[in-house]
């Protein structure tokens, strides 16, 4: 039965550190299995080694370079089972996979996505960065530059995949693609502030913001 969005629910945090995309996905599958069998929700945090991921709506035209050029960058290309088009994950980008049962959150997918955006918007506000949504373009934007991309999967009312927030990301990797299929520029916290930020600081802040937005009770 769906529960109220405002009742607290328990959640575990898993910080994987820097991992391959595949290891991150395996962690999602394990967490998904646990949540499906009644375990607490899981918030997975990680950074990935350079990888371009193509979601269900992705198109070949999203790539502005050859496969050889991608390889030369030390990156690879993977088709993934999430919504959205093409994006990049790499060092300096915080990737968050909320493996949450939507039964705890009113089975409201749109609200879940909106709250994920709000997590990022509120986090950025703490750093003095004014970020917003753009109607019809899911994600978080600073003026007309995108700072965080979102793409999810939902099975049996449990979410997987998540969001990528550019913290200290080398944004040149995005020059090889049309991020999310759009002719846009990406930005990062480092770009906005003119200095790099410790990833651990961002991780602490994002855990706090998830707690606020989703009324989570984090388990030790």
């Amino acid at each position: 039965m769906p529960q109220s969005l405002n009742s607290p629910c328990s959640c575990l945090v898993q910080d994987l550190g820097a991992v391959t995309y595949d290891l991150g996905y395996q962690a999602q599958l394990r967490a998904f299995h646990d949540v499906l069998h009644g375990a607490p929700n899981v918030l997975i945090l990680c950074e990935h080694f350079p990888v371009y991921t193509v979601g269900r709506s992705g198109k070949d035209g999203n790539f502005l370079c050859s496969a050889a050029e991608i390889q030369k960058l030390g990156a690879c290309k993977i088709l993934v089972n999430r919504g959205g088009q093409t994006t990049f994950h790499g060092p300096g980008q915080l990737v968050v996979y909320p493996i949450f049962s939507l039964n705890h959150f009113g089975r409201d997918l749109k609200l879940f996505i909106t709250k994920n955006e709000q997590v990022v918007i509120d986090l950025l506000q703490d750093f003095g960065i004014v970020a917003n949504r753009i109607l019809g373009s899911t994600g978080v934007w600073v003026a007309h530059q995108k700072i965080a991309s979102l793409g999810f999967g939902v099975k049996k009312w449990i979410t997987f995949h998540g969001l990528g927030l550019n913290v200290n990301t080398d944004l040149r990797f995005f020059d090889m693609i049309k991020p999310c299929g759009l002719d846009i520029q990406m930005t990062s916290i480092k770009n906005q502030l003119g200095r790099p930020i410790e990833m651990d600081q961002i991780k602490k802040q994002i855990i706090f913001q998830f707690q606020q937005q989703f009324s989570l009770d984090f388990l030790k």
Partner: protein
Amino acid sequence: MINNKHLIVPFLGEGIDKVVISAWHVSENQSFQQGDDLVEILADKAIFDLPAPESGMLTRILYQKDQEVVVGQAIGVYK
């Protein structure tokens, strides 16, 4: 056909009015168990696998892959 029931695109939140069917996981005349993934739909920036509300057999697919449908619409028939 008193036992026929409609498979409906569920409410997924205010603002998600239309979705696209991206894959059927079951074929016509195929049986399924409650909770099995029946159909994958694209909604906003998410793919959503619609679980079977109860056990049964899919008797008719009303909308095919890549077709756009609205929330609340019947996309299949089962019994």
